[in-house]
């Protein structure tokens, strides 16, 4: 295991490029999110701008968060730790930097096409066929670079983080191609109910086979280093890894419990949603026992702080997700803001927090200097944490209002005035997250480019 040496310069332009990619798109993505949240409060403000209206901003926000902010942030850490853990150099920095440029091109083309109305209308699979091809290509390039790095390793044992990166990159390239139905370029969809089943298989795998394994990989790498404790259990890491792949892939149909899909498939999805407790707790017990007695060290290290907080959100979002898969619960929580809250604490609270932590972990090593400002990093931590906690409380509350009102026979229209205030509160919480994103971007750029700190 690599030690936590103080800021020895480790040139890694690939990791650096992915850090900047993530920080930049985080700022853009939260801006889009805030803008969209504004429309829910004042739909006639800045209205009738075709490329900015809510129906186009919403997929832009979601795709930017997934493919602009969180995934590149987690990959930045992977591009750093895979060579470290295998005691070798990255296979090709040139390919890595090229991949980062292609990645940004893909994201840019993706959001421009969405803003112009080119969409396949399937959640998380909106991007049209040419952009799909670019996405599969960049995942393949990431995969080639990392697999070739591992191929040339000087360390025989593969650490658990590397398993997760491999699984994430290879399986996402496959499920992305499958979920976007790339053999039907015109619509990128199947016909009828099978389309819904495939879409939510894929949609859930974006979390289960991309964000989750990449996040767990970063946590498995950083937490033992920050706490200077060996990993608690390799058996648990094996159990967690394989059970994640088996269980997570089965549960997509829990998005369709009230839709005419085969009942046995719903049963599979519900049972496996509950079984998600196994991979989740295998990981959490492992990480939390690794950190046992070392909360002081975690608190002192900004990366450890972000990542450990991310694991707590992982606990919460996973248990919440299992409970939401119960049909009786879902009668109330489906179709409303409860689910929006769930998605935000999963993607930002868990994966986003860990992505930020991973970046703060590697930034001083990439620049050979300490972080530009620990204060700003702490400020970002609190802004994001307060924002996302606010989101959970506000959106869960408004979701319960909507779900119970509907279940009580009230129409959607009747409930609108009742929830207006919560949309205002949600915008305020979003403002905290937005500020955090811009402060983080500033801090990261200053750390890499205009850093007055002394080189070690």
């Amino acid at each position, binding site marked *: 295991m690599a030690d936590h040496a103080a800021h020895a310069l480790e040139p890694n332009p690939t990791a650096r490029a992915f850090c900047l990619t993530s920080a930049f798109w985080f700022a853009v993505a939260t801006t889009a999110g805030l803008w969209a949240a504004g429309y829910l409060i004042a739909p006639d403000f800045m209205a009738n701008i075709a490329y900015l209206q809510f129906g186009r901003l919403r997929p832009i926000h979601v795709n930017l968060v997934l493919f602009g902010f969180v995934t590149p942030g987690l990959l930045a850490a992977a591009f750093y730790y895979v060579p470290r853990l295998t005691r070798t150099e990255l296979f090709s920095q040139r390919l890595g930097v090229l991949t980062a440029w292609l990645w940004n091109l893909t994201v840019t083309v993706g959001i421009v096409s969405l803003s112009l109305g080119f969409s396949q209308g399937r959640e998380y699979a909106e991007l049209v066929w040419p952009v799909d091809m670019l996405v599969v290509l960049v995942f393949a390039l990431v995969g080639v670079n990392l697999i070739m790095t591992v191929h040339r390793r000087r360390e025989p044992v593969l650490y658990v983080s590397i398993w997760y990166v491999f699984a994430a990159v290879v399986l996402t390239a496959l499920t992305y191609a499958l979920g976007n139905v790339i053999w039907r370029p015109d619509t990128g969809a199947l016909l009828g109910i099978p389309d819904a089943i495939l879409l939510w298989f894929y949609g859930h795998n974006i979390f289960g086979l991309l964000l989750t394994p990449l996040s767990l990989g970063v946590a498995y790498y950083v937490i033992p280093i920050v706490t200077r404790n060996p990993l608690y259990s390799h058996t648990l890491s094996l159990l967690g890894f394989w059970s994640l792949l088996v269980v997570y892939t089965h549960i997509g149909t829990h998005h369709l419990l009230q839709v005419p899909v085969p009942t046995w498939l719903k049963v599979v*999805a519900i049972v496996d949603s509950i079984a998600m407790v196994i991979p989740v707790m295998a990981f959490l017990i492992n990480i939390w026992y690794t950190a046992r007695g070392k909360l002081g060290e975690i608190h002192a290290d900004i990366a450890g702080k972000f990542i450990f907080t991310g694991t707590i959100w992982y606990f919460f979002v996973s248990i919440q997700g299992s409970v939401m898969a119960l049909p009786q619960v879902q009668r109330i929580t*489906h179709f409303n803001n409860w689910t929006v809250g769930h998605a935000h604490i999963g993607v930002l609270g868990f994966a986003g927090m860990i992505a930020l932590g991973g970046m703060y972990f590697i930034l001083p090593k990439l620049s050979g200097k300490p972080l530009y400002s620990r204060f700003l990093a702490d400020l970002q931590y609190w802004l994001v944490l307060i924002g996302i906690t606010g989101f959970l409380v506000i959106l869960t509350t408004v979701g319960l209002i909507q779900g119970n009102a509907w279940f009580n026979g009230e129409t959607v229209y009747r409930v609108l005035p009742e929830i207006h205030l919560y949309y205002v509160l949600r915008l305020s919480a979003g403002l905290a997250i937005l500020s955090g994103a811009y402060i983080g971007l500033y801090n990261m750029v200053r750390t890499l480019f205009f850093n007055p700190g002394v080189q070690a």
Partner: protein
Amino acid sequence: MIQRMTPTAVILGAVAILSAVVFVVIIWPNTTVDMTPSEIFRERTAEEAAGRKLYIANGCVYCHSQSIRAFDWGHGATRIAQAGDYVQDEPILLGSARTGVDLSQEGGEHPDDWHMAHFINPRWTRPNSIMPPFEHLGMENLRLLTRYIQSLGMQAADKRMQRQAFWKQASTKAYEAGIEANVRWLSETVPQGWRDIPTPYAASDYSLARGRMIYQGFCIGCHGPVGDGMGDAQPHIYPPPLNFTILKGRGISGGLIYYQVMNGITGTAMPYFKKELESQKIWDVGNFIAAYFIDELDANGPPRGIDAAYEP
């Protein structure tokens, strides 16, 4: 054991698991899902298909579900979705949120002109709506979108559209025959029993205050702030919204107003509100209209039943 986790084992193991799961949860159900069209199924016309493309391009699916659940009865549902309803949908547009209403059976709920006014600015027909205005799409695109929306529900929607067309003709004829004839038509289409009853509750300050709130949330977009039928939606609707101020002395009872608010006037842009407004709210808004716009109240007048317990 940890030494056995070679790159090959990790990658092949992961891909093997994924393949097995894809077989179980994707391929197997795909071969067993019943793709028989349901009893209301019909194919989309070219214009409806073009409207559906606009629906997708503009992200309507993010706020509108097309998926009526078994327990949406309380929500006013008239039909639970079946697999056979979706057999021409590529992609299927079930949606994941009801920021707006479910549209599975929207076809024929309103006439076309209501939809045009609503697309240009949703607040013109639905004052509390938070839907974006879509005027920027242009009238031709809005017409195509309307064709698609009116097709939702397929054969069931077609029946509702026929009803809309029939009553549109009748209501237009009545409107064009002048005020006297129009008011007579509006009255005579209400069953006599309803026309005979006055509002059973007094037009108290509370009743009028409640009625005012309801009017602002449901009626003001068409009938306007002074009840003269000159709301924002008026230029787009034909026959135009009723001018309440002409009704004095024409024998408009509380029961008649109640019936028209409850049941709507199919064929015109006047929707039915019984799904959204409970009995007391309808009586209250009727009192408000009668007191402020018609200036002729029959509230609590004869024939009277037993006064309700709360009445002063």
